[in-house]
């Protein structure tokens, strides 16, 4: 233990040495640098080139300055895609998943054990099954000729995914992702003091008044956390591609699908990178807001 007295040993009690420590940490840092940090920075550069998957520009890409960015900003197809993405995130996550998740959590908070377990199991299963499986389940459900939905509704010949592509992927994503909101709100609701709810009931408050005056003030932080996370995930969700592939006629061409089709299907990598940069920036903004929220809440707890 004499070693611990010297300042060098205090900095490096394991006697590891900086060089060896760096060596041990190197594989992780290299992978992170190459496959996480580099792609983010490379997007910036790639967006300023005319890089293509095939042809002359594939071998000899050159800089086109900010052309890609100005072209994207002016492109009606991009505006269309952005608007669809907004509809998709707002409809399926902010409204759909958050609302349905809360309603389920609220209704099941004192439901019978088996009912609660059954509902939770089904909602969770929809969330954790592989995306290719659930995508095909919905393709089968909505099929024009033999789909179960048409049999149930007596609407033979209705091709739901073709006639209502946006509604299809929005309802699909509500089905797919409500589990997270349900779990989060269930956990949040256990933190609402039952005595306050009882008091509100005693004074004749109806359900809505109880929610507004007692429940929401308690779970405000959870609501915000939930909205930010599910918006981020829904914004980055590629699963709709496996149901509608952006079609028909770009009618469900949300941003991830638009990037895929531009960059990897049409081969316009430079242009695709320019659009990707916008996605990265939006992700960054949402993540920073989320971090700020976490810090504020930690401060509140300290105070």
């Amino acid at each position, binding site marked *: 233990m004499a070693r*611990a007295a010297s300042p060098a040993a205090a900095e*490096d009690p*394991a006697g590891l*040495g900086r060089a060896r*420590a760096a060596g*041990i940490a190197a*594989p*992780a*840092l290299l*992978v*992170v640098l*190459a*496959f*996480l*940090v580099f*792609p*983010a920075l*490379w*997007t910036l550069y*790639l967006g300023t080139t005319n890089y293509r998957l095939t042809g002359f520009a594939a071998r000899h890409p050159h800089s086109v300055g900010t052309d890609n960015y100005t072209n994207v900003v002016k492109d009606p197809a991009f505006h269309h895609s952005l608007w669809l993405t907004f509809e998709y995130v707002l409809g399926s996550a902010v409204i759909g998943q958050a609302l349905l998740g809360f309603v389920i959590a609220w209704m099941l908070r004192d439901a019978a054990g088996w009912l609660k377990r*059954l*509902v939770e*199991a*089904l*909602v*969770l*299963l*929809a969330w*954790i*099954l*592989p*995306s*290719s499986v*659930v995508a*095909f*389940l*919905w*393709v*089968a*459900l909505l099929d024009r000729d*033999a789909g*179960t939905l048409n*049999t149930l509704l007596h609407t033979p010949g209705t091709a739901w995914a073709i006639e209502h592509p946006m509604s299809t992927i929005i309802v699909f994503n509500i*089905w797919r992702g409500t589990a*997270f909101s349900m*779990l*989060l709100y269930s956990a949040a609701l256990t933190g609402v003091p039952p005595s306050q709810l009882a008091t509100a009931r005693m004074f004749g408050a109806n359900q809505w008044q109880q929610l507004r005056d007692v429940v929401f003030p308690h779970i405000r932080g959870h609501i915000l956390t939930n909205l930010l996370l599910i918006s981020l995930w829904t914004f980055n969700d*590629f*699963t709709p591609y*496996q149901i509608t*592939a952006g079609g028909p006629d770009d009618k469900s061409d949300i941003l991830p699908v638009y*990037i895929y089709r531009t*960059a*990897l299907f049409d081969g316009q990598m430079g242009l695709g990178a320019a659009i*990707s940069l916008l*996605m*990265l920036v939006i*992700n*960054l903004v949402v*993540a920073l807001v989320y971090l700020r929220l976490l810090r504020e809440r930690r401060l509140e707890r300290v105070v």
Partner: protein
Amino acid sequence: MTMRDTTTGAVVTKIGRYTFLSVLLGFFALPMLWLASAPFNAHPTLNVSISSFTLHNFSVLLKDPYALPSLWNSLLLAGGTALLTVGFAAAAAYALSRVRVPGRDGILYALLLLSSIVTGTAAMVPLFQLAFKLHLIDSRLGVILVFTGGLIPAAIFILKDFTDSTPKSYEESARVFGATPFQIIRHIVLPLIRPGPVVNVWGSFLIPYILVRNPDKYPAAVVLYTFYTEGGQPNLALISAFSLLYSIPVILLYLFVSHRYGFRFHGGIKR
């Protein structure tokens, strides 16, 4: 029980509540009924029905040249990612907690932030180009490295708690780090392998879809997609049996987790 429970209003509320719950159950169960029925239907259609029970669809699955190998490929991707992430992150967390690096926590936070921003979707273009330049197209290692890069920051975070709290003197930490394999598994590997990321890699579609060109190396997610999108009448016997087989590990993991720990919220991040 107060008087108000017996009024008609309360009855209506109760009826409304159970109606809603029934509709809800229907909404969530309906798409999954096909997954439970079609694999055992002798003449599977897209509709939910069992005309005559059979296990024949699973023998169709065995004969398909891509079905079973693709499950093996998915297992390699999930297992390889878990191994690399745990190995690399454990080493890095150990080194970082033993040697003082200026601004260490700040860097770690920045990496964690970056891993939630640089998603496969937002970074598919540079990731594809990177894999192309490094000759990692068609390589399982390429897919594994992409996943590993995204998971390491969170893994280091989880592990740092452990390495920071272990005794700092070389002799004492040697007892843990030079310890028996059983102890290493118990203290390092098990806390790190979380069902969330494993299930995610097992089900992931986009990254292997863009990085793997050779059908022999397709994981199950990509093979299933090609089964129903590429050419002609989809083979429903094959698709249904394959979907079920591909889902079973996830269902078993869910049953295990909910039985053992209760599927409650612990702040795990999915997707």
